[in-house]
């Protein structure tokens, strides 16, 4: 979930009024946002920022100062801002700027959108905000620039039209931002900080994308880095050319729309850019940006009432939808919206219905007591486990609970078992959490290893899940409910465990037999397999001194484990 920092003055200017933290906190849920922090008055007014967390990952338009302010403003006033510069998909408009796409980028980065903004000199706060928006959009929404990346330029120094074409990474070179020397694309990926960060997107591509002006000067190397000459924007600049490239056209286009609406809100006028393709795209071969491409969405009033549990009128529903920024009309018993230009999150009528809910406000919906009668019950394994637990507690055992992820040294090396028998994580975060346990015993022995100062005798148990490799399963791995138990004291021995197992099995109502076992975790000849209904369901015995030594335990231990799932069925 993205967190953004908004400049307090800029935010309130765009919102249309100032407010305190209590009012702001009450307002933010309308954008599924939460107040995270607010600079206090020790910071200069102009520099004060508000930290806000945005929860809706389908609303990238809210991840900027202007976008968030717009949502809150529209929600309060119901006045939908006008963005006349949008060109409906499929329509053409005469544009002063053109980008010509070459066939060579079709495989690597096929789509581009762009526009030009002219307006007031860019302030420091605006530039900061713009860079933040760019980062949030490309990182979260653009999947770390894989599907969407953004570039900013000064249009006046560019020789139009601009060209987007493929390049040989070992041959073409330019001076990237934050550098003074000419580097090949390959060098940039290997040596430039941004190149290293994003090289994963292009490293397996033979042809890399490059944006150039008509004089063949490099504007940028999408999605990696801009050129130092033509790709630098500074405070005080009045004109901007903004391009968005990527692999999914709706995301690329929506990103351009969001940026255009934000700049428009901040007083810029937006001018269209036409993009020409030599190949078919979901948007056609000639596309004018900013482009309005979102289809209408409709929801029946009955459907709306049923899902929300309230009998609102169709007008109420329409008004509520408008308060969320989309033009809405009534068609018979349906509410039809044209999604706001900066939104593309209506996949299903339920998305519109949620907008109606939010437009009306949650407080209009009083909670209703459930009336369907159902019978509650614990799962059979939980009931059975609790029965086993009572026996252990009665026999003087302290129940323990452990994490299920652990280190090789604890689950495998110290236990002296084969690593192949334990489920391994292929992308562990650290060695400490690399395996999914196959037994409760390492946890219990871990307790003994750190508890030699606790008064003896120690009798501990755990009932919990373990994972076993099992070729018969679709997943090749079975999850089982196990009871593990361990006694540690000077007289802990096989006989104590045998007696406790007998008691446990008696009260579980399971008649069992024992047979000799060869489990390296226990002392040979002092261990027994528990057999019930003809199958082995567990094992117990005296823990082998090799295991105790590996855990650094100097007290005799006897213990075991029982598969409760097997025993139940």
């Amino acid at each position, binding site marked *: 979930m993205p967190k953004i920092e908004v400049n307090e003055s800029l935010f309130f200017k765009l919102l249309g009024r100032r407010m305190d933290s209590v009012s702001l906190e009450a307002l933010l849920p309308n954008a599924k946002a939460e107040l995270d922090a607010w600079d206090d008055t020790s910071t200069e007014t102009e520099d004060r920022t508000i930290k806000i967390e945005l929860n809706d990952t389908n609303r990238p338009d809210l991840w900027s100062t202007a976008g968030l302010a717009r949502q809150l403003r529209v929600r309060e006033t119901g006045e939908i801002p006008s963005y006349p510069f949008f060109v409906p998909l499929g329509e053409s408009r005469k544009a002063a700027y053109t980008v010509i796409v070459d066939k060579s980028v079709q495989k690597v980065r096929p789509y581009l959108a762009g526009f030009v903004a002219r307006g007031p000199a860019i302030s420091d706060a605006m530039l900061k905000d713009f860079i933040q928006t760019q980062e949030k959009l490309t990182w979260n929404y653009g999947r770390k620039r894989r599907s969407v990346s953004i570039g900013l330029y000064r249009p006046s120094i560019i020789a139009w039209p601009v060209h987007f074409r493929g390049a040989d990474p070992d041959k073409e070179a330019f001076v990237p931002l934050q550098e003074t020397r000419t580097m090949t694309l390959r060098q940039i990926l290997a040596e430039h900080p941004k190149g290293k960060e994003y090289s994963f997107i292009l490293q397996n591509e033979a042809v890399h994308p490059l944006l150039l002006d008509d004089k063949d000067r490099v504007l940028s190397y999408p999605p990696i880095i801009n050129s130092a000459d033509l790709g630098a924007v500074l405070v005080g600049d009045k004109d901007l050319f903004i391009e968005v490239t990527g692999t999914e056209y709706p995301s690329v286009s929506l990103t351009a729309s969001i940026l255009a609406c934000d700049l428009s809100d901040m007083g810029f006028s937006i001018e269209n850019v036409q993009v020409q393709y030599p190949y078919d795209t979901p948007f056609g071969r000639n596309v004018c940006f900013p482009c309005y491409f979102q289809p209408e969405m409709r929801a029946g009033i009955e459907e709306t009432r049923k899902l929300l549990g309230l009998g609102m009128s169709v007008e109420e529903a329409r008004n509520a939808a408008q308060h969320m920024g989309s033009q809405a009309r009534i068609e018979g018993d349906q509410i039809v919206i044209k999604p706001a230009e900066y939104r593309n999150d209506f996949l299903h009528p339920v998305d519109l219905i*949620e907008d109606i809910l939010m437009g009306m406000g949650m407080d209009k919906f009083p909670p209703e*007591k*459930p009336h369907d009668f*159902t019978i509650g019950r614990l799962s059979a394994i939980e009931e059975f486990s609790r029965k086993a*637990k009572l026996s252990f507690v009665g026999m003087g055992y302290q129940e323990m609970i452990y994490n299920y992820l652990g280190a090789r040294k604890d689950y495998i090396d110290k236990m002296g078992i084969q690593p192949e028998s334990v489920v391994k994580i292929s992308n562990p975060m650290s060695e400490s959490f690399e395996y999914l346990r196959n037994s409760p015993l390492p946890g219990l022995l871990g307790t003994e290893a*750190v508890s030699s100062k606790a008064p003896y005798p120690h009798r501990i148990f755990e009932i919990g899940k373990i994972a076993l490799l099992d070729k018969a399963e679709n997943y090749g791995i079975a999850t089982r409910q196990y009871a593990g138990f361990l006694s540690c004291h000077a007289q802990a021995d096989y006989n104590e465990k045998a007696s406790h197992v007998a008691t446990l099995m008696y009260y579980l109502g399971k008649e069992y037999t024992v047979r000799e076992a060869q489990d390296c975790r226990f002392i040979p000849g002092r261990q027994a397999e528990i057999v019930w209904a003809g199958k082995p369901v567990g094992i117990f015995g005296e823990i082998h001194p090799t295991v105790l030594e590996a855990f650094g335990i100097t007290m005799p231990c006897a213990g075991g484990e029982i598969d409760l799932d097997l025993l139940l069925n």
Partner: protein
Amino acid sequence: MDALSVAKTLHPLEVRILLAYDPGSEIDGETVRRDLHFREGQENQAFSWLLGKGLITEVARSASTHFELTALGHEYAEKGSPEERIIALVAEQGPAKLIEIAEKLGFDQKTIGSAFGLLSKVGTLSLDNDKRAMLVGEASFPQRVLTIKALLTKAKAAGGAVAETALSEAELEVIRSVAKKRGAGDSPFRVVERERVLYRLTEAAEEFRGLLKSLGVSGEELGALTPGLLETGDWKKASFRPYNIGVAPARTIPGRKNPYVEFLESVKDKLVSLGFEEFDGNMVETEFWNSDALFMPQFHSARDIHDVYSIEKPSMAKFIEEPHLSKVAAAHENGGDTGSRGWNYHFDRDFTRRLILRSQGTVLSARQLPSAKVPGKYFGIVRCFRYDKVDATHLSDFYQTEGIVLGKDVNLRTLLGFLEMFAVEVAGAKEVKYVPGYFPFTEPSVEVHIKHPVLGWFELGGSGIFRPEVTKSLGIDVPVLAWGLGIDRMALMTLGLNDLRELFSPDLESVRLRRTLMQPK
């Protein structure tokens, strides 16, 4: 402690001394043993306790020599000396060879030899022609033998030792000749230097004497109530010695449930009481059930390699059940028959089989859907795994509490009704607030914030109505409410902890001492 409390806790040995002697009396171990029939050693115990309470003081201390019976001495005192026993044997059974006598009496030859030597010297025994010992005339004992016999009797009567001062010159001469320092095993006496300590009962003893009399304590009270006392009914003839209830009790180490598990069980019980049925499932799941079935697009940023744990071997499920796979794939690609326009991308049917560790409890809700009853309510408190750096507020594996409600007529307002019920019943909330939320698999989505009596305002849970893309793909045509509760903060509060890692603490002593401070209501 006041005198009365002390008096109540006096040991019977102390009581008997206090009642037997007037204040000002001077007593020593020997006196007390003799007068009160204390066993050896008891007098010293009693003296040390009385000294500690200031009821006696030490008056004088003097050293004296004692002759103490050795193990052999005790045996002689009981069965007679070798000389006596030889005479008795020969008198009864007639002449016998020394070797036979030694065998019959169980003495070694040396002892028999020297005893015979003594007796033949005084003419009591002599050897006949067959080298057998025989009586010469009447059985008469030499004086020395008689003196030793008297000394043995005297020492035994005096509790196993006799003081040097209590013996005559003649007795001393004999005993000195047989006693050995540090008591060698072949001698009936050993010489010991004893310290005699003389005590005097203090004035304070007078007060205690009064108190004891008023309490009716005699020192003859019963200690433990034994089966024998109950069988014979002897307890009726005596009273019980009172115990000092001010003594710190010994620690008991009980068998116990783990308090965190107990907390989780109490939440489960609460949900069952609200009509929910428990579900459970695999820790290892597929991308399909963990995310695809929940309509999270495969390109979603939360599904990156570093957000879920994947399994090394096996890395893929063999198959995904149909028709779920086809229907979910269609919902992703173009909405299928769910009324959605879908995510509009190519659904990867290999990726969906990838094995991972369950990252959210909602997996179980999705898995439950195809077989769920309508109306139906289900829940699970299950272990989930997150790609988080472990610290006080993040764990790599932890419990999530999740559930669903299926019903023809459930809606947003019923959802709020359930949230209110959880807030009040499970969390003991005083105030409840609902705000719009966001989850990829629900629409609308609602967060519930509660004002907890101790913790104040916090987010109790997230919820919503499953998207039709989720439910219709799994064959469900009624609305399904989905909810999750964050109960970890309540668990920490209930257990008096402030670090999530402590919930799974391996430290036995800290788990043993942990208490449940407040059960959820």
